[in-house]
């Protein structure tokens, strides 16, 4: 109950902050497409809202340069990109006390190996401002080689970096950068050379899971999207039926930069995910509910959750467990999680038990109205608490 009390007190503080925020403008921003590995026009859309005082200005500040791998005076190139030859510029959209959404769009023509950082600022008619956290993304053909400086000589080696799709690059003065859950998407071999097919699939999954879906299943990830970094990886993933998956070559090396790895495939085969606190899974982007499927699979490979349906993978390594090997274990754990012991129910005839409050839950029900319920909800909340506390894992 101590934990519950702490959470409730946090809740009060946060709720009051939320209410206080009503006196200030709000601002959101997103780029589109999220990632494309060819030259294209990328549009950053920032929206300011202040229904009371009205918005007078929405501005988008960008820094665009060439993606490189850096070695910071050392020897080894980085798995996450650096930037060179950058320019800063921006756009300001001026409104007059706009009380509806004040939308500012900034299209950018991006060439190969582009790396873009943007922040959006909204100012209301009283002069109060709100600003988004800096987001960095890549565009255009990726880096394929890096130059290594070794004392008196330079050598060039084949090199690929992780390609940021939604990367938080805020570095508060004098502080360490906040920790995030890094999720990498890798193309399955079934895309062949159609890398754009993969990035289109990534867009479907990422937009639906983290940004613009309106169903219950995505509420949690949408609300906490700033606790995640999303990346695209090079070719080299290969998933097949019966839990056979691998990452080869540069994809394998680049995967060392992320916590969770999703091999995105288009053909139908059974998805398979590690039950791990950071692992590998597969996710089919061509399903009509691809974002839900990814969200479920991420429950396994990001949060260590087990399936809560008969015929699934019911084991877990989550904190707390969302399945138990006996009714007694479930009933013993439930009250400490703020859950009702009498709701412990067996998952079919599996011998595994979970807390079933009767609602549709993402680790069991393939339903867009599902949510992270009962113990899985506690596990997700604890993961986010760990991130905001400084170490996601």
């Amino acid at each position, binding site marked *: 109950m101590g934990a519950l009390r702490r959470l409730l007190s946090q809740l009060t503080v946060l709720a009051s902050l939320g209410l206080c925020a009503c006196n200030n403008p709000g601002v959101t921003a997103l780029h589109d497409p999220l990632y494309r590995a060819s030259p294209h026009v990328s549009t950053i859309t920032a929206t300011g809202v202040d229904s009371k005082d009205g918005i007078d200005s929405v501005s988008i500040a960008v820094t665009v340069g060439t993606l490189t791998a850096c070695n910071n005076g050392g020897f080894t190139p980085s798995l996450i990109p650096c930037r060179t030859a950058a320019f800063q510029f921006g756009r300001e959209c001026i409104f007059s006390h706009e009380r509806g959404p004040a939308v500012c769009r900034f299209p950018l023509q991006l060439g190969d190996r582009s790396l873009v950082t943007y922040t959006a600022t909204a100012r209301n008619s009283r002069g109060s401002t709100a600003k988004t956290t800096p987001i960095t993304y890549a565009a255009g053909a990726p880096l394929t080689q890096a130059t290594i400086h*070794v004392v008196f*000589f330079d050598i060039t080696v084949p090199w690929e970096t992780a390609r940021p799709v939604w990367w938080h690059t805020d570095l508060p003065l004098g502080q360490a950068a906040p920790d995030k859950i890094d999720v990498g998407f890798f193309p399955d071999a079934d895309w062949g050379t159609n890398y754009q097919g993969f990035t289109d699939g990534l867009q479907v999954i990422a937009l639906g899971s983290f940004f613009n879906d309106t169903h219950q299943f995505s509420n949690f990830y949408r609300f906490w999207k700033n606790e995640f970094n999303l990346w695209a990886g090079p070719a080299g993933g290969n998933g097949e039926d019966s839990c056979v998956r691998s990452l080869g070559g540069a994809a394998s*090396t680049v995967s060392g930069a992320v916590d969770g790895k999703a091999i995105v495939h288009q053909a139908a085969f059974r998805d398979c995910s590690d039950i791990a606190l950071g692992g590998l899974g597969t996710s089919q982007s061509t399903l009509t509910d691809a974002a839900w499927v990814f969200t479920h699979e991420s429950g396994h490979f990001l949060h260590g959750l087990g399936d809560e349906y008969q015929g699934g993978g019911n084991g877990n390594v989550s904190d707390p467990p969302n399945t138990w090997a006996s009714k007694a274990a479930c009933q013993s754990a439930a009250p400490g999680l703020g859950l009702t012991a009498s709701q412990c129910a067996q998952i079919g005839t599996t011998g595994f038990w979970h807390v079933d409050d009767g609602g549709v839950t993402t680790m069991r029900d393939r339903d867009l109205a599902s949510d992270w319920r009962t113990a899985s909800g506690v596990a997700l909340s604890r993961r986010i608490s760990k991130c905001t506390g400084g170490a996601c894992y």
Partner: protein
Amino acid sequence: MRRTSSLPLTVLPGALLSGALLLALGACTPPANPASTAGPTAPAQPKIRDLPKTPVKDADDPINRFVADRTVDGLVLSVTIDGPSVTLDQAVPARVRKTQRKPTGQGDYAPVTAIGFAGGARISEVAVPDSVVRALDDWNTPHRGALVRVTKRQIVIPLAAARALDTVEVTAPATGAHARLDVRPAYAEYCRAGEKAPNQGQGRDNPMCPKGPVDQPPGDQQRR
């Protein structure tokens, strides 16, 4: 019949927290634009002012400072663990994440650990999740999933290493695997190039190019 709405009062604390946050922020959701009550109106068209381009020095670029802050020299190993055996698939020197993860778990969920050595000295250690237990989900023909336990799996290990490593000791308790892997060839490409450079041998002053032969084949993948 499953309920699809109305969280019970015995709601989980996490959901309560995020729900309340949503509620609090929801309270800030602006009401419909008063003008919109009279019917659809065109969105407000702003006056646009574009700001000029100014160059950013590489040293001042926040991205470069961010990456320098978040990464350290290291070695990324890809290994295949098959029961008790460990095989090195590839090892690539790379700057890796500075923040160490601390995976937990026991039995089949016990993390894989890797310890890097150079000249017998222990340089660094990391633990990464193992991949023994998996969930198989069938989204095309429902209810054909399973809990799968594998013994052969690929593990990627980003290991910090401020200097060249010669050996990495990998342990995977889930299947009783333990091996010492020779990783010297990982640095060979760079250091060989240094030896052939005009200032021959100068590359050996780099901590990533240790003294001694660098061309030895990875023949020392001992299993214990």
